[in-house]
């Protein structure tokens, strides 16, 4: 399983054929996906057609860039013209968009080869159940465990070599959770950097779209292709787009990393193995020259109330017509999380937005003192499906959710092994629009460790 960047270099040198690469991926999907369930739709003919076009263009010197001829797959909430887009729900099982999502258009323009559409938790928030309408993706590190979500299929496909790059969406942690549980890289960019036009909505003011990949460099390559202003997304920002791939180079000496230790250690369900892996990761960063110090997060004790009140209120506004007419088509794992949103009042929503504003202001002040905030991505390694089904319907995402509220960039990289030898993630979150520092420190950590190269037992 070579990184996307290596595949790209070989394609450009014409020592690797995009057609052969696509066929190899389709063969792996055929071999492994019956167990993994990471693909909802395989677009074999589309992939072959895309790959042939890429091969012809590159042969005549029309190389488009590092995604040209690269086999990718998309979380099935990004609209694809002429291909069903289900958001992982029976409610949308027959939906066929007529236009590509903005990010799909950008990836196509970059010459990427579309292998198919990937499994997700229903409407990007459900809790996966084995009897879901669409079978849930399985964690390749232990098939009895969830891979994390909601961008579950994206993480599984990357961890098992069933695609070379992917996209996820992240409203409370949906890119970073599965990245941590499957030992891949997931980047939630700054709010407004990547267009959400054509991505199924969960929460208008919290949704982000971002890359998922096997390495930090690969994530930077994908981000480069999808970042940029889009007038069709009201949240889109006209920001300068730096060279993200180049930004990952360089030393990290002097970078100030804040650790909200009291918050991390008070996290319900924090496993000692996760804390040990986190402390080991901080030591690696120290050895590479970073200044690591403890900090206190502002309003963190209210982050759950702020995020869930906003998220569920907005989700109810989006889903209300279907809830009235087609509620029986929703899965249990999604319903149980969505329905409490019916009980919030307008005053609750206003209070949550007021709290959000104060949290953002406090975080701005904190980020004047440090360049990054480091936390474990998740407090525990991946639970089993049975444990997940028995868990509270209140989504728990203590570290990731903070940066959906503030809109700051936040990356999860493989950060060691936890209980039962399962992967855990290190999360690094930076200032708004400072993806370059996030990528640079993440890449430095990646170079110093071997966690990103681990192969799930299923493949060994």
């Amino acid at each position, binding site marked *: 399983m070579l990184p996307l960047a290596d595949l790209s270099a070989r394609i450009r040198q014409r020592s690797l054929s995009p057609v052969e690469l696509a066929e190899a991926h389709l063969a792996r999907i055929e071999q492994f996906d019956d167990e993994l369930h990471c693909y909802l739709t395989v677009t074999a003919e589309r992939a072959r057609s895309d790959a042939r076009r890429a091969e012809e263009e590159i042969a005549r010197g029309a190389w488009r860039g590092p995604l040209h001829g690269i086999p990718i797959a998309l979380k099935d909430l990004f609209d694809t013209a002429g291909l069903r887009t289900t958001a992982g729900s029976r409610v949308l099982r027959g939906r066929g968009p007529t236009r590509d999502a903005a990010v799909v258009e950008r990836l196509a323009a970059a010459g990427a080869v579309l292998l198919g559409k990937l499994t997700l938790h229903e409407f990007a928030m459900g809790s996966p159940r084995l009897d879901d309408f669409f079978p849930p993706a399985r964690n390749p590190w232990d098939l009895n465990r969830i891979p994390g979500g909601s961008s579950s299929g994206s993480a599984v496909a990357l961890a098992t070599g069933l695609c070379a790059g992917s996209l996820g969406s992240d409203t409370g942690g949906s890119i970073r959770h599965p990245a941590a549980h499957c030992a891949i890289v997931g980047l939630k960019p700054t709010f407004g950097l990547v267009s959400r036009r054509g991505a199924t909505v969960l929460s208008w003011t919290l949704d982000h779209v971002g890359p998922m990949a096997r390495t930090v460099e690969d994530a930077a390559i994908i981000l480069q292709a999808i970042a940029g202003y889009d007038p069709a997304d009201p949240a889109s920002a006209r920001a300068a787009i730096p060279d993200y791939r180049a930004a990952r180079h360089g030393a990290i000496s002097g970078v100030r990393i804040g650790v909200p230790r009291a918050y991390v250690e008070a996290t319900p369900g924090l496993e000692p193995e996760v804390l040990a892996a986190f402390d080991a990761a901080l030591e690696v960063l120290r050895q590479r020259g970073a200044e690591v110090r403890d900090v206190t997060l502002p309003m963190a004790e*209210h982050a759950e*109330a*702020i995020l869930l*009140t906003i998220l569920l209120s907005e989700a109810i506004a989006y889903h209300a017509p279907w809830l*009235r007419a087609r*509620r029986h088509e929703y899965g249990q794992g999604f319903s149980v999380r969505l329905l409490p949103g019916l009980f919030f009042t307008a005053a609750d929503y206003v*209070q949550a937005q007021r709290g959000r504003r104060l949290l953002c202001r406090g975080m701005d002040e904190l980020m004047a003192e440090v360049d990054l905030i480091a936390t474990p991505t998740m407090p525990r390694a991946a639970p089993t499906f049975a444990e997940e089904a028995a868990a509270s319907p209140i989504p728990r995402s203590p570290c990731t959710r903070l940066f959906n509220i503030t809109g700051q960039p936040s990356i999860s990289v493989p950060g060691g092994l936890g209980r039962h030898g399962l992967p855990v993630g290190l999360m690094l979150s930076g200032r708004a629009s400072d993806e370059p520092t996030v990528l640079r420190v993440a890449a430095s950590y990646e170079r110093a460790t071997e966690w990103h190269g681990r192969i799930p037992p299923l493949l060994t």
Partner: protein
Amino acid sequence: MGERSRAAASLRQHLADLAGRAGVTLTEQELADLAPVYRAYRDGLERLGQSLSLDDEPAVIFERPVGRQTP
């Protein structure tokens, strides 16, 4: 019916009324399952409300979390 039962029934009716505003009818089982979740959310919002000062009124209710850079 004891006081606790009456309180539980009253809460379920309250939740049914709230859902009804959106035109959604919940089953008795759903109302029973959702009651503790509702209490947890109310507790969180209560704590949040106590931390918000009336002297800190926002100019706008929602402002984009990251500064807008309009074209």
